[in-house]
Every structure is written in structure tokens, then in C-alpha cells.
């Protein structure tokens, strides 16, 4: 087989029948509001691919938090509600309890889920609500301009810890995912990242698995996505992904934490 003629015209290739990947149709025309390179876009893109491929658009309802993804309902072409800061898990509980045969997910950031919403988050997990919680952990409050979050690492500089987060003053970063994995109500708990193609593929599988488990009322499925915050961390997207690997992953190791209701880590 001789190598392909290099000068083959690109137009030969980019024919509809040769299309192998395109963004899900479940998006509005409006571009994402997220900063260049932000993981929120990648996560939500993967989520919508799953909704489209599983064919559950007619039966899924999402709950948006308060944070950078507060207006995600403007981009995603599915039914959604926007809950008060920290309360998306409780809103998702109420929604799922009256719509038991629908797919319900709440999408929350670290401030939303693990700071102001901790009470709702822990009790939603403890009740084992049959929902999917997608918890985006970028260790900072992005929307409000880069303040410290409960998951901010020690010595991490933020606008409210300009000299680095000090353990004596602000305690240590909160491993909320390991915390809720201890609760019997959680069935599948897994931590992911989307800065690499392999990571995106794994996240997609985890979301599909979670929706399937939800259909079988197995209990709460929880996916943490460790993500970057370019504007908050004051780095370029590529640099922030490197920083994330070197600093966030050691403290928030990727991989499954609980499978089929049993801790694996």
C-alpha cells in the first residue's frame, strides 16, 4: 500500500460521509460563556453527547448551580432548572422524588457542593437519592473572581488567600468525594479529569454508567471532575492543565472510589 498522495485535496476528506466526530446537536447556537480552555465546556459537551447517544433527551432534567456554570441551561438544549447557591442537590431531590422515572442530574462546583451546600450535599448522598451528581472541582470560586474554595490546596494563592491558603487559618482542602463515598447511599463514586482525550473517554463511560444505574434505582451516582480554572489560577489553559496534574491530582487522585456500592480505594 503506497502512502496516501499528500497533495490529496482536503475537500476530498471533509465530506459528510467521512464525518467521525461533531459536537452534540443538543447545544444552542449561543457560544459557551466559559473562559478559553475551561473544563466546564468539555464536561458539558461530554454530558450532552451521552444524553444524545442514550436517547434520553425526552426524559432528562438537569439542575444548574450558582457558579461559572450557572447559565449552563442557556447552552444545553434540555429541560433544566437553576437552583439557589449550594442547593442543587436538594432541588434535584425534590425533582426526582416527584419524577421517579426521569433521569435527573445536578451539576455543581466546589463552592456550591462542598461549601455553602455541604448540608444538602451530604444528606442527599446519605438518603441515596437516585440522581447523578457531577461535581466540578477546580479548587477555586471562578465566577466571583478567584476566591478560595473548600478544595483549594494548601499554599494555593487565590484572591482571598493572596499569600497562599494556610492550614492553621483556613483548614485543609476538603476531600468531599471521599467523605460521601463512606455513606451507604452512594452507589458509584468516581473521580475524573477532562484535559486529555483518554480522560474525556473515561468520563463519558462513567456518565453512561451512572444514568444506567439511575434507571435501576441503585442509589446516588457521583462523578467528581478535577478541572482547571485559567483565570482564577492566572495561567494559560495548557499551563493550568499541567499545574493540575502536578498539584491537584496528588491530592485528588483520579479513578473509581466506590463501585457497586463498595469502596475500592
Amino acid at each position, binding site marked *: 500500500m503506497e502512502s496516501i498522495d499528500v497533495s490529496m485535496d482536503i475537500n476530498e476528506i471533509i465530506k459528510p460521509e467521512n464525518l*467521525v466526530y461533531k459536537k452534540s446537536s443538543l447545544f444552542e447556537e449561543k457560544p*459557551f460563556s466559559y473562559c478559553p480552555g475551561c473544563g466546564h465546556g468539555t464536561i458539558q459537551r461530554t454530558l450532552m453527547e451521552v444524553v444524545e447517544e442514550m436517547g434520553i433527551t425526552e426524559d432528562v432534567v438537569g439542575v444548574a448551580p450558582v457558579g461559572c456554570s450557572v447559565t449552563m441551561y442557556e447552552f444545553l438544549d434540555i429541560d433544566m432548572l437553576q437552583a439557589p447557591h449550594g442547593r442543587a442537590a436538594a432541588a434535584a431531590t425534590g425533582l426526582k422524588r416527584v419524577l421517579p422515572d426521569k433521569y435527573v442530574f445536578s451539576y455543581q462546583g466546589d463552592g456550591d457542593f462542598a461549601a455553602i451546600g455541604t448540608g444538602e450535599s451530604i444528606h442527599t448522598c446519605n438518603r441515596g437519592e437516585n440522581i447523578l451528581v457531577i461535581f466540578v472541582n477546580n479548587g477555586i470560586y471562578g465566577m466571583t473572581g478567584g476566591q478560595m474554595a473548600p478544595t483549594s490546596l494548601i499554599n494555593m494563592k487565590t484572591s482571598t488567600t493572596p499569600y497562599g491558603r494556610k492550614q492553621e487559618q483556613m483548614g485543609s482542602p476538603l476531600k468531599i468525594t471521599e467523605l460521601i463515598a463512606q455513606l451507604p447511599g452512594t452507589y458509584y463514586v468516581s473521580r475524573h479529569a*477532562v484535559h486529555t482525550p483518554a480522560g474525556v473517554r473515561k468520563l463519558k463511560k462513567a456518565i453512561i454508567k451512572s444514568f444506567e444505574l439511575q434507571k435501576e434505582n441503585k442509589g446516588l451516582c457521583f462523578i467528581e471532575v478535577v478541572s482547571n480554572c*485559567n483565570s482564577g489560577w492566572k495561567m494559560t489553559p495548557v499551563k493550568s492543565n499541567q499545574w493540575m496534574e502536578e498539584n491537584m491530582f496528588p491530592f485528588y487522585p483520579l479513578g473509581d472510589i466506590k463501585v457497586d456500592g463498595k469502596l475500592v480505594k
Partner: protein
Amino acid sequence: MSKAKGAIVVDKEKCKGCEVCITACPHQVIGMTSTVNAKGYRVASMVLPEACTGCTNCALVCPDGVISVYRLKAASVA
């Protein structure tokens, strides 16, 4: 084994020039344009088109989903 032949199409006006796709491409196909789009971002584009195998890595990590990927079926290559 003949190398699969691929190509990407970038939605120029929605690309935010984050360059995350560059590091994801196994064959260094992508680079940034010298020109900017309406928002003032340099845009991802194929600087080494012939190396593209249509593996979709770039599209998977694109936070704004601006990359569409095409791959020539092996049959039509022969």
C-alpha cells in the same frame, strides 16, 4: 498498514484559542493561526494536514466543541 487519512474543520468564530487541542494531537497537526477571529482569538488550524489521522483526540478535549473531525474510510483510499 496504510495510515488513515483525516482532517479537521474548526468553527473559527467560536474557537477561543486555548490551545488545549495542540497538546492532545499525537501528530502535531494543529497550530494557531496568525490571524485572529472576530473575538480577537487566534484560531486552531491544521499546520501539518497530511499528518492528521482523524483520531478525534483534539475534538474530544475541545472545551467549546468547535472541532469536527473527518476520516477517509480505508476502502476509498485504495
